[in-house]
């Protein structure tokens, strides 16, 4: 029953390489994906991103199904309609039925495009958990929470001040139904910004049970600082959080049995052997490894324990979501994945 179906998309907005994830030498970093989720999933081994390899623009491309061409660091909306706009306009869904939880760097505009036929008022609500926490902490000290307010890693040297406002405080109260003190108290027990994002996503699931929920994790992108151990820790944390999200889906009657989960990095990272790069640190060369990643799809109707080796493109995600939920993604460049729909 398409109208009852739900979709949760988890992207890693900090590309992860196959050799630190699904290749034999990387499998120790992803025990949950490998042993808990993979057996229940269709696994696409070659998801190629032919667009710009910057995290905001690449995530926007994932969300529009078109390789967006704007400056990765610009504070702009995607030019093409997002999947949230297609979903809400075609299926006449309320704003509370589509949400994005994203890192704070630039992603505040990812919920809706500048396309004239869609755009304002038709997109997803966007929650930036670090913005929420900053707002909640403005009356107190930030000292105990610095680890949750880490920055934009893609440009690790450029770390604009986080700001919180009345808008974020209103989101806490009206959307997440959390008091400032409860939110801050819970945050105290979390280890990273991604854990905060998943906490917020679960709160959204409890409050609105949105049919389309998009979560972008970002801890992995600490790789840009050149510290391999922190990059690996980010992968291990993402692995654990993905399993937690799937468990939360199965435990929630609003989601269990009718939710398809997609998990994919937005792209890879540079190869060790490309002379113009520096291995895992960046994603600047445009080599095959930096453009190629993987995707897990799981849920009702998706075949389990299946490996799909043919190359697909990251822009295929949006039309696949359209086919699953029953809306048209007319401006997308991708094609629905027959293995999933």
């Amino acid at each position, binding site marked *: 029953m398409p109208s009852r179906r739900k979709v949760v998309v988890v992207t890693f907005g900090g590309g992860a390489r196959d050799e630190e994830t699904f290749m034999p030498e990387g499998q120790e970093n992803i025990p949950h994906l490998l042993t808990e989720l993979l057996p229940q999933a269709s696994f696409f081994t070659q998801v190629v991103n032919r667009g710009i390899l910057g995290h905001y623009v690449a995530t926007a491309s994932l969300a529009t199904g078109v390789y967006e061409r704007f*400056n990765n660091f610009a504070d702009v909306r995607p030019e093409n309609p997002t999947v949230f706009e297609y979903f809400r306009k075609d299926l006449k869904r309320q704003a509370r039925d589509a949400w994005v939880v994203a890192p704070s760097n630039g992603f505040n505009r990812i919920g809706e495009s500048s396309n004239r036929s869609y755009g304002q008022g038709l997109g997803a609500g966007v929650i930036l958990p670090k913005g929420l926490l900053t707002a909640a902490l403005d009356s107190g000290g930030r000292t105990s929470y610095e680890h949750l307010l880490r*920055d934009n890693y893609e440009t690790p*040297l*450029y770390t604009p001040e986080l700001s919180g406002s009345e808008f974020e405080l209103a989101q806490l109260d009206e959307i997440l139904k959390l008091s400032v003190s409860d939110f801050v108290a819970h945050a105290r027990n979390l280890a990273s910004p991604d854990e905060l994002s998943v906490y917020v996503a679960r709160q959204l699931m409890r409050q609105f049970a949105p049919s389309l929920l998009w979560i972008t994790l970002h801890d992995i992108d600490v790789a840009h600082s050149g510290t391999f*151990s922190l990059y690996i820790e980010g992968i291990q944390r993402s692995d654990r959080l993905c399993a937690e999200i799937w468990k939360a889906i199965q435990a929630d009657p609003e989601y269990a049995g009718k939710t398809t989960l997609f998990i994919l990095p937005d792209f890879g990272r540079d190869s060790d052997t490309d002379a113009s790069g*520096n291995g895992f640190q960046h994603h600047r060369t*445009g080599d095959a490894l930096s453009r190629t990643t993987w995707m897990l799809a799981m849920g009702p109707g998706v075949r389990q324990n299946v490996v799909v080796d043919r190359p697909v493109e990251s822009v295929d995600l949006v039309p696949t979501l359209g086919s699953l939920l029953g809306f048209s993604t007319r401006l997308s460049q991708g094609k629905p994945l027959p293995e999933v729909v």
Partner: protein
Amino acid sequence: MLSSDLKPEQFQTYPPQGRQLAIAHIDLLKQLPPSFVALLLREVIAYDWKFPAEQKDVTRQLTYLGGLPNEQRQEAMAGFAQIRLSPELEGLDWVNAPTQFSERLTAHLWSSHQIDGFRAAALDYGRRVDASRTPEKPPIPRLGIMVIGQGVAASSYTMFRKLRKQGVYFNAVKPENGVRLLVDAVAARAAAHPVAFGHWYIDGATQEPVSSPGLTSVSYQALEPARAAILKKMERVIKSGTGGPEALHDQMAELRPEEIGLEGTGDAAVLNHFQSSVLAEGSGTQIFSTSFVQWAAREALRRAQPVTLLARFTPRQRQRPMGELIASPQQSPTLDPEGSLIDADMGAYLTWINQQRLTGAEQSSFLVWWEDHPEAVAIAPTLPHGAVSSSSIDLNQVLAQIT
């Protein structure tokens, strides 16, 4: 501006050697596509502060291109000639600001989906230049030595995980005085085979005392004032709230060593430019000693092409929010030895790959030693791959086996 409009007076702001080189080859430069010639000028404008190996490389490219018949030169440049520039790029003063042009060009190539075409053109050009020359063997086989894992008493991490299969894993190395012994060995090589900027010692903390005029020494600790000055500059740009990451990149790329307290002339100026670029253009090098050592080693190999490189990784500070790391550097930060060991193990692997890119790779040797521990991996043409040696041995004896 078109390449064909180039005039000698446009190179007036170039340092003397670079200016002379550009003017001597102006007829050639006029015939090259702007997307290529601007990148070549990025090398020429910095020619005076380049290492001898880099200077040779720039000259070789100019000689190669100048020696080609017109038709073949056009063929070699065909990929670059197809690149469509934006009006903004065409309007930039790429003669005097080639670095800024290069940054903008990269962004333009990505957004206009020309990056793959450019990449293919660059690879094709590199192959042609390489094919035109007889590979120059190093005067002695190259030797890389990595010291990693300082401060870690025991670890469950599998050491040398990527390099072990390339050589022999020694598990009974006598660790006593190991660092001293390796520094002395490198100093002795530098004294015996003098090569300008041919022998390097990079340390992630304070250098071991060493006296060898032929050894180029760089240390994270010695650069503390320069790092602090750079972080201050970064903080100022960030706090100004204008320009964003691209403005910061531009300012860092244009930074002169004198601005961060690195003064000197002659060879000292060349080294200062190198150190300044490692700190200003490297990502994480200002705040994490492991990133500094890895990137400095990578850049030393790529640029100076040394025959000897000793790099010692030391514990980096623990992760804190980047804004805080920039704004409030601590005098005695909390260290993360275990994480640093993992960083360094990967850093050693990347350094080996970078060494293998240089000429004479088939004769090169490489040693990675876990500081103060009996474990090491040695890679050399004379050693088997994936072997294990449990014989008691000191580091001098290991070195004797690979050099």
